[in-house]
């Protein structure tokens, strides 16, 4: 999504990042990425995880934080990840 969109919805951004981090293993190759802001997550990584979540829930696969995607993220749910390797 265009950065300005995300900045406009800072709260959505936070919720999405927490959600994707917990259920779609957000920390991946970009974790080794040297960046000033420890919380920095590459846009492409976020967009890919949003697509993974949209695909899981049968939503339109856009990679954007649209209302249907946010609607699912706001629903009460189980804490077990939807996609993850289990050790």
């Amino acid at each position, binding site marked *: 999504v265009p950065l300005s969109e995300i900045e406009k919805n800072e709260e959505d951004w936070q919720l999405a990042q927490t959600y994707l981090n917990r*259920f779609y293993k957000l920390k991946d190759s970009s974790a080794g990425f040297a960046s000033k802001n420890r919380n920095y997550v590459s846009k492409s990584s976020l967009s890919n995880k949003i697509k993974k979540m949209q695909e*899981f*829930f*049968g*939503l*339109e*696969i856009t990679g954007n934080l649209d209302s*249907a995607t946010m609607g*699912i993220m706001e*629903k*009460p*749910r*189980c*804490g*077990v*990840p*939807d996609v993850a*390797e*289990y050790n």
Partner: protein
Amino acid sequence: HFPGTIKWKKDKITYRILNYTPDISSTDVDTAIWRALKIWSDITPLKFTRIFEGEADIMISFGAREHGDNYPFDGANGLLAHAFPPAAGIGGDTHFDEDETWTMGSNGYNLFLVAAHEFGHALGLAHSRDPGALMFPTYTFASVNEFRLSQDDVSGIQALYGASNEIKPNPRPQPPKTPEKCDPYLSFDAVAGLRGEMLFFKDRFFWRRHPQMPEAQLTLINSFWPKIPAKIDAAYENFERDFLVVIQGNKYWAVNGYDVMPGYPKNIRRFGIPSSVRKIDAAVHIRTTSKTLFFAGDQYWSFDETKRAMDEGYPHLITDDWPGIPARVDAAFEQHGYIYFFRGPAQFLYNIREQRVLQIDRINQWVGC
């Protein structure tokens, strides 16, 4: 399943309830846990035994925030519970978020429903993509007495442990199926617009479709509107008053966004429909005339929303007034001067002004197939 198809290497599984929630009595917690395990033992060779001390395979507890497993809960709502896949130690253990309001009914999170889901994980099931499955990640209330595992749940657990080896006196009813968008025999129970989107109702579900999106999202009706029936007969959008009317049996509900409006359900007799009509098959609101048409059997009624009264001389036979439309219909909606009538797998595109059917298509295209 989890990667590696993790499962218990035995059929006799022990469980232990370590503590209780103050929200409901300990007896109710015992009952909810027992029933939640039973839905899985009923359809597999698994046997669950409760123990009261020592290490059980499934250790059950209530805890808030950080509760000792490095997977903290998050306060009320959001995360409700979690469980670990089958393994020694923490494997199989099931934790419920104490910051939730636990209930045996619908005024809070129903402990039986959440426990049944979590025990699916404790037995080796991961999350399902089937919105009608118990193992779908998000919570939707369903009446506990009517609860049934979906075919997806049954297939998943029996792939791990096989089917129950007991001969049951009364064979179990078939698990409910989740509608398939490409099913050539698909039919709709109801169709309506809602604030620019389209809703296609089928059994406990509806497809939600945004005009610009080719895909349609399948969702449980009660996941959106917990207080209306799980399955409906007809629906229409009262565009002027910005609400969706859903009809089931001889009752109707007015829904504004996510909320069922106060004072509903009401009886369809209020529209002037005779009490002999037990079920409405389809309803459609025509904006240009502000009329709402109700179809039941081979007849239909016309209700004038402006006068708030049934038009004189109804019912009429459908075939008398709608040339080319079947004698009975499943669903209907109006858009840009056309009425789309649905009957079985076919839809009939009817031009109101020209008073004739222009086109007949299959209905699957509406839901992305």
